[in-house]
């Protein structure tokens, strides 16, 4: 289905939902203030549904906007939005019966910063899409780029292109990519410890502790985040590298088994820290050890809220039995 047909259907379905009173609010995307930007928008009457759009710049994870809102809400959701919704429902943050998911298949979202980099920051005054290419007007001249070359980092390694939960399906199912596995993680793991450390420290050095990664994350909803606690203070808020690193380590741990890899954190990071360098490790481990992919199955409990008697123990210390197992004697 063409993008314009998707937009038309999204608008029609949204208008029906609002007109019939089935929902009080539709959360979707509208055209942003300039080309290559789509912004979350909130529509509460059927006449306003003309604002809704769908294009390659709808990267924001809309699951972030449902918590704390009253009434029945319809949300225009791509696969990673629905995966976050699934996890939030599991964690009792959202109620499935209060939401209507308008599911849209996704072929990956475009990273506008990558486009700007390629076009040398020449003013981009127009953008259209056709046949997997972006047709831009940059610095007054036409430029054509393959979408594949400018996808968000998280979208390049995406494993799920179709909504996981869906009440109203829009468009044809996108072909699912072969699950790309965790090649990036394995390659990194193959590096010597010292080199891994150097690379991660280089990423951490760019962090300015603005907390944007946490603040945009659809899964970060703690009333009081460990990073803001002063009493006790778990991680320092200053500039020492140990504190910066621990902030990111603990965040990665808090997201283990929950991170749906929507890439919201990486897109928000003002200094371009590759946050996946830690989060992907956790995704790989959770998948390999517990067979779990966050947000894929509403009925399977979160891996860290449960256990299996047969969980791996090879990581544990088993001192030489002959020498140690004297059992008190």
């Amino acid at each position, binding site marked *: 289905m063409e993008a314009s047909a998707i937009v038309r259907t999204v608008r029609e379905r949204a208008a029906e939902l609002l007109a019939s009173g089935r929902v009080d609010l539709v959360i979707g995307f509208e055209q942003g203030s300039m080309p290559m930007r789509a912004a979350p928008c909130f529509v509460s009457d059927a006449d306003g549904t003309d604002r809704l759009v769908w294009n390659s710049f709808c990267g924001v994870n809309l699951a972030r906007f449902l918590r704390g809102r009253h009434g029945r809400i319809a949300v225009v959701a791509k696969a990673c939005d629905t995966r976050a919704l699934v996890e939030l429902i599991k964690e009792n943050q959202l109620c499935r019966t209060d939401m209507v998911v308008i599911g849209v298949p996704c072929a990956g979202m475009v990273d506008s910063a990558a486009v700007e980099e390629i076009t040398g920051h020449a003013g981009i005054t127009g953008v259209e899409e056709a046949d997997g290419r972006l047709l831009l007007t940059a610095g007054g001249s036409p430029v054509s780029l393959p979408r594949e070359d400018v996808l968000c980092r998280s979208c390049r390694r995406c494993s799920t292109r179709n909504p996981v939960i869906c009440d109203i399906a829009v468009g044809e199912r996108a072909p699912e990519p072969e699950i790309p596995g965790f090649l990036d993680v394995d390659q990194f793991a193959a590096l010597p410890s010292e080199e891994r450390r150097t690379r991660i420290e280089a990423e951490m050095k760019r962090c300015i502790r603005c907390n944007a990664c946490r603040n945009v994350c659809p899964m970060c909803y703690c009333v009081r985040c460990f990073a803001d606690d002063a009493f006790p203070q*778990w991680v320092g808020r200053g500039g020492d590298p*140990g*504190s910066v*690193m621990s902030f990111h380590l603990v965040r990665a741990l808090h997201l283990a088994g929950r991170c749906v890899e929507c890439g919201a954190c990486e897109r928000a990071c003002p200094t371009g820290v590759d946050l996946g360098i830690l989060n992907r490790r956790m995704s790989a481990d959770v998948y390999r*050890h517990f067979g779990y992919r966050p947000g894929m199955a509403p009925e399977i409990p979160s891996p*860290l809220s449960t256990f299996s008697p047969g969980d791996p123990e090879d*990581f*544990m210390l088993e*001192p030489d039995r002959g020498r140690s197992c*004297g059992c008190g004697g």
Partner: protein
Amino acid sequence: MTTGENPSTAGWEPGIVAFLCNWCSYAGADSAGVGRHQYPSSVRIIRVPCAGRISPFFIISAFLEGADGVLVSGCHPGDCHYTSGNLIARRRFILLKSLLEHAGVEEGRLWFTWVSASEGGRFAAVVDTVTKRVRALGPASCLRRRFI
């Protein structure tokens, strides 16, 4: 933490923080003492109610504040005072150990094990092994906090 400010000092001994569950491993450390099992004095023991109580913060904080190694020990599977605290914890520890080593904390600084109340000998052997391994690695620097 009194780890060597000057790692080149020949007499450097590692500082190891041990988080021990109240019901098994802490009692196991006690039995080691009662049973006169010799083990290195490098560990500083912190008693926790259950292995399940151990937040990743505890371990990361220990490294931040200068520990050279961290040992975590709880009840053997099936023995948990709270039924399954140790098994829930086991899942977390898998991830924590993997993540820290991924980030460059050398393999051999962070250890998990099970020690029951009666296993004084095992406790001594655990501390012995851990101390040897950490001593071989030298002072930790990866997560240590330093004001610039």
